[in-house]
């Protein structure tokens, strides 16, 4: 992205020596930040050093934390994952054979960054092409010939879907007042936990799996309850391990060591 976004903020931050300017506002998630950071290495995206990238990202997040910027959960999840990746990359290979090697994980990340980068580039090329109404123009006052199949009546798919959605919205509006929105449901917890547990190679406190944006104490309690229920269900399915060392003590979760 050569224009109109804030990814330049970090570029400048890391090209100069340790002048870390942290601003999460312009970013669309952790992958976007990683790509911004990767660009500062000024090499072909397929040749970036993932290890250096991981360190940059961790420094970025640490700085954001230090100056108390609100960080969404997925940025922290990525940080945890990169810390894990870093340790895998630094560790001599050959241990724990059931896990993908650090190189494999790094290759996967490189692939994803390269892919996102590629789609961004072609997106720019698309808009740099010959656009109707900007670069070329249709006849200003056509006398009117239409494609034979063109109907007399016009309606777009958008209108059709919007009409139905609006209708549903109206129909649903009555029930809306009854449903408290603040409950973090069992389904949500299961989905979230399923997505996150893969990163928990080691024991992590249950608290760490709670969603980041818990507005009040009530929501938080529902989140704890549903996440605990979800973890029990996932443990039953053999997808994760649970540990609690004392009554009322903290509960720890990790990815199941044996695949079910």
């Amino acid at each position, binding site marked *: 992205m050569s224009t109109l976004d804030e990814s330049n903020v970090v570029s400048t931050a890391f090209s100069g020596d340790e002048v870390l300017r942290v601003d999460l506002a312009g970013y669309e998630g952790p992958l976007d930040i990683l790509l911004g950071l990767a660009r500062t290495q000024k090499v072909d995206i397929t040749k970036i050093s993932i290890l250096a990238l991981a360190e940059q990202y961790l420094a970025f997040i640490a700085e954001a934390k230090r100056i108390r910027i609100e960080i969404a959960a997925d940025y922290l999840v990525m940080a945890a994952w990169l810390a894990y990746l870093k340790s895998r990359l630094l560790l001599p290979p050959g241990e724990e054979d059931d896990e993908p090697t650090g190189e494999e994980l790094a290759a996967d990340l490189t692939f994803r960054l390269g892919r996102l980068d590629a789609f961004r580039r072609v997106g720019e090329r698309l808009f740099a092409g010959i656009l109707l109404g900007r670069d070329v123009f249709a006849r200003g006052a056509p006398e009117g010939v239409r494609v034979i199949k063109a109907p007399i*009546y016009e*309606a777009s*798919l958008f*209108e059709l879907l919007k009409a*139905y959605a609006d209708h549903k919205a109206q129909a649903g509006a009555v*029930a*809306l007042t*009854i449903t408290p929105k603040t409950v973090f449901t069992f389904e949500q917890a299961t989905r979230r936990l399923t997505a996150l547990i893969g990163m928990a190679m080691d024991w992590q406190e249950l608290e760490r799996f709670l969603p980041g944006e818990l507005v009040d104490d009530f929501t938080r309690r529902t989140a704890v309850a549903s996440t605990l229920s979800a973890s029990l269900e996932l443990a039953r399915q053999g997808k994760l391990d649970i540990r609690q060392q004392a009554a009322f003590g903290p509960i720890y979760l990790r990815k199941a060591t044996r695949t079910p």
Partner: protein
Amino acid sequence: MSGGSELVPVREADAEFQSYVRMAEALLFAAVEPLDEATLKARLPQGAVIADVVGALTRSYANRGVNLVEVGGRWTFRTAPDLKYLLEFVQQEPRRLSKAAVETLAIVAYHQPVTRAEIEEIRGVSISKGTLDLLIEAGWAKIAGRKRTPGRPVTYGTTEAFLEHFSLKSVGDLPGIDELKATGLLEARIASNDASGESEDGEAEVRAAELPLATGPDAEG
């Protein structure tokens, strides 16, 4: 159609003059209304003699399917008079469907086969007779059959032309409630309690048989 330009045919060969012709051609083509000399003069490079440029353009289009014509001192492209017949029988003014018609069409698409009474029940208002007729006239809705309930009411469904117009492979490709939400078309909060509402169809006849229709025009917009 200035006869004067024929006196200086040399100029037409020159590249600069040809570039003016190209510019005038593009301008006259893209303009939403006929352009006068002053407008062309303002857009073309200084030194372009508009009468000559327009004259050359007029001549080069003289025998083509489209001609450059002068109307009230302004120029515009028009279909050659002898080819007007090609356009006449196909000229049609596209008309937009009303909001009520689009909504009815959406309900027919999502709930087919559906009776008129069911549509009214779902929409909460009675539908004017013209709405379904119009959808049938547009070629998007058709009579699908009859329902096996007392009175054997006619049911409606969508046509092949409907699928074609909206680029759908099948009716099953219409996004469901969750997908509408995911796309951003439906407020995310709303329909989470709608899982049961999904299967309205099966019970519709019961309800339709029991409930009086909302008849007032005041039920919704």
